[in-house]
């Protein structure tokens, strides 16, 4: 129901007005030790958050769909979280780093596409979906949806979403999902809905794939780090970076550069909903309630690259789950 006007809680809460990160954490590294080919713009740690939210959001959906159908998922809150978080991170980098137009453009493209998708889903679920809803995933089609979303999340943690094989899922839906069973209307309504979703994503994914090839270079799949002993290491990029970084920290290392940067790096953690959200050597940037998991909240914090290993160790000690380290 979140498209409608009774807001129960804010979707994203900024830690303060405008720039909240100390300005001295936001200085470009003029003479990086890291080889030039492995250096990435310093503001990208922030700009990758809205992009990664499009991984967090399906992940939440996959969790949610284990117990509920898609019909009651708060799509519009997630839409709001994309844009609000984008606004907040933008305030941190604006004026401190040269504007990264290509990255902003990419965020706009994926933000708008996701907004269209979530709005359409929200409208459809509120107008048609809710007429056939079973509450829990009772039909083979609702269960198919849960499984497909789970697989999709696993996929996009390592590879671009548009490379996901929507076509074979569509075949799977019509070939291997039982046509018989109770909840006749729900079954067919979901079949219609899933067919539409998979078909549209298949076509749109093909187009984005072509477009991306034209505009952006192939993304590097590793992140160069320079440790306190001036040694250069290559860690896996994206999802697996946090674990690798923690391992180095546990070996007693700290970081001088990550992807050529020694300015602030963003990370997100999950803490209980009543957590005070203050962390040593780190600045909280914003907080997002986890709408499908109300006892927890996501906190985005920033810390200088040099303090990252200490912060990671501290979090580990406190038993706080690190969701993601945004390795530029």
């Amino acid at each position, binding site marked *: *129901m979140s498209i*409608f*006007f*009774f807001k129960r809680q804010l979707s994203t809460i900024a830690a303060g007005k405008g720039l909240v990160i100390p300005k001295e954490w936001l200085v470009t590294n003029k003479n990086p030790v890291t080889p030039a080919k492995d250096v990435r713009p310093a503001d990208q740690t922030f700009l990758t958050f809205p992009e990664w939210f499009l991984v967090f959001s399906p992940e939440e959906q996959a969790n949610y769909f284990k117990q509920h159908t898609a019909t009651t998922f708060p799509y519009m809150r997630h839409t709001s979280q994309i844009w609000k978080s984008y606004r907040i991170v933008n305030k941190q980098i604006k004026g401190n780093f040269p504007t990264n137009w290509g990255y902003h453009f990419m965020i706009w493209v994926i933000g708008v596409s996701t907004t269209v998708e979530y709005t359409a889903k929200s409208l459809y679920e509120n*107008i048609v979906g809710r*007429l056939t809803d079973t509450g829990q995933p009772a039909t083979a089609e609702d269960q198919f949806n849960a499984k497909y979303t789970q697989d999709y999340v696993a996929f996009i943690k390592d590879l671009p979403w548009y490379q996901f094989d929507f076509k074979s899922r569509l075949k799977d839906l019509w070939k291997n999902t039982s046509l018989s069973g109770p909840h006749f209307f729900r079954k067919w309504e979901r079949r*219609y809905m899933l*067919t*539409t979703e998979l*078909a*549209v994503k298949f076509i749109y994914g093909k187009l984005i794939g072509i477009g991306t090839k034209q505009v952006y270079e192939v993304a590097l799949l590793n992140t160069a780090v320079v440790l306190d002993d001036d040694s250069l290491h290559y860690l896996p990029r994206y999802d697996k970076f946090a674990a690798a970084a923690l391992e180095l920290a546990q070996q007693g290392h700290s970081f001088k550069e990550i992807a050529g940067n020694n300015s602030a790096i963003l990370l997100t953690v999950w803490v209980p909903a009543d957590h005070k959200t203050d962390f040593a050597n780190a600045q909280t940037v914003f907080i997002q309630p986890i709408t499908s998991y109300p006892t927890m909240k996501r906190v985005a914090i920033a810390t200088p690259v040099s303090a990252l290993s200490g912060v990671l160790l501290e979090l580990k000690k406190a038993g706080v789950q690190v969701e993601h380290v945004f390795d530029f």
Partner: protein
Amino acid sequence: MTFKDKLPVSYLLFTTRGRINRLTYWVAALFIWSTFYVLYNLLNAAFTPAATFIIYPLLFWALFATAAKRLHDTNKSAWWLACLLVPVAGPLWLVWLLGFRKGTIYPNRFGTVPGAAADYYKNDTGALIPHLKTEERLINDVTQLNPVLVAQIVVPQTVEELQQMVRTATRPLSVGGGRFSMGGQTASPQSIHIDMRALNKVLAFSAEQKTITVQAGARWCDIQHYIDPHGLSIKIMQTYANFTVGGALSVNCHGRYIGLGPLILSVRSLNVLLANGDIIQVSPTEKSEIFYACVGCYNAIAIIVNVTLDLEDNIAVKRQQVKMKGHAYKPYFFENVRENKDVIFHNGDIYPPFYKNIRAVSWVRTDEKPTEKTRLMPLAAAYPLERYFMGAFSKNHFGKWRREFIIDPLLYKFKKVHYRNYEAGYDVMELEPASRRQSTYVLQEYFVPVQKFDAFLALMSEIFIRHNVNVINVSIRHAKADSGSLLAWAREEVFAFVVYYKQNTDDAEKGRVAVWTRELIDAALSLDGAYYLPYQPHATSEQFHRAYPRAKELFTLKKELDPTGKFRNVIWDTYYK
């Protein structure tokens, strides 16, 4: 009254019959969704989420009903909504079809074009006075300024019936058709009013010879519909196609045709019914003295029963226009229009309130593709834009300035190409104000020999400005000399000044109008011109006879052929002594 008119919103939202256009569909969709949004939230807030389910049937029915009507507009049955069941392609196709595809431009199996009128605007059949036990009725014209109480209204269905009526009449007779004259030319107090509109048959038609014979009650638009498929067009008629042929003949009207003039020039012959009940055929060569006492003679000696008219080819015409100073118009006309065989229609519009500038508009023969999809002019049920402009122009000087310098330049920017029949198919409805109770729009017309154009323009402007007349437009037309009607308004080649103005309906205002009207008549007479008779009879008897010197011959003929004064109307009541 249909359900559609009685409950338009219920019709729109809950019935599936008929057609709606794209704009209506979008507006309805906006209304449906916003209503749903508000109701949904109210129910959700006041009760429980489950309570919102009660509005779903309404939502779906309204969506279905509006979509069905929109599909009808594109000549498709509502069953096409089943396309929704085809994922992706179905909904997309329907969005295009419902929201963006133009409706068919002609009536289809589901109804007429949305917003189109079924027919041209018609005057009523005579107003009933409440509680009156006699057969008396009020006959009025389109201005509603001239109500006349008649003893009875008869609507003859056949010529024989009409003949019988004239033979046996014990009262004076007045004759009316479309009743678009504006001064009581169709009625006389306590007369029997003959409504000629049922006598409207086409009697003969020859596409080869380009002639048509129709009964006098036929309307020009009826003839257009009849001859358009044969690629033919009317040779001479007025701008508006609502009038009946008999009425137009009786006033000897004219249009905007170049190289032609009064309607009489396109008449081959007439059958007329005399006061004694005889029907005779007359033409310029056969009983011509009667012929010239019938066309343009306001039913003085006979009722026109049927007429044979010349036709022309229905060619495509393209609009051209140029704006100029008043004194430049006559030389422009003589150099570029008068002898130009390619110009079919032409008129000049003099801009009030200063009468200094003229926009000359010509419709010329073209091989270009018409910009209009229909061959004939489509009829609108309402003309909100035209009505708004007319109101705005009449309001004040700023309205008139806006017209001359903003609206007209915009309107004339567009290229316009359509058929001759299209350009001759205007509906009087476009001029109709929302109400004629407080104020009303009226026409007058003056004719002056072509060489006197500048002199009359100066005299006319002075009178309008001095009397502060609320003139909306003065349209200039051209006419060659009449062939001989006893009440010919074009005794030589003339320019016509068609004045369209607004006046209040109170008696003081009527008196004021009479004063400046007589001044204008004097102005025209001083230049050997004339004024036109289908309007209010403000002229004095002396002015009438100066403008129409052969009226005396007509009176003599009337004494001979209608000795008891059977045929009456405002003209004979006022000027025939």
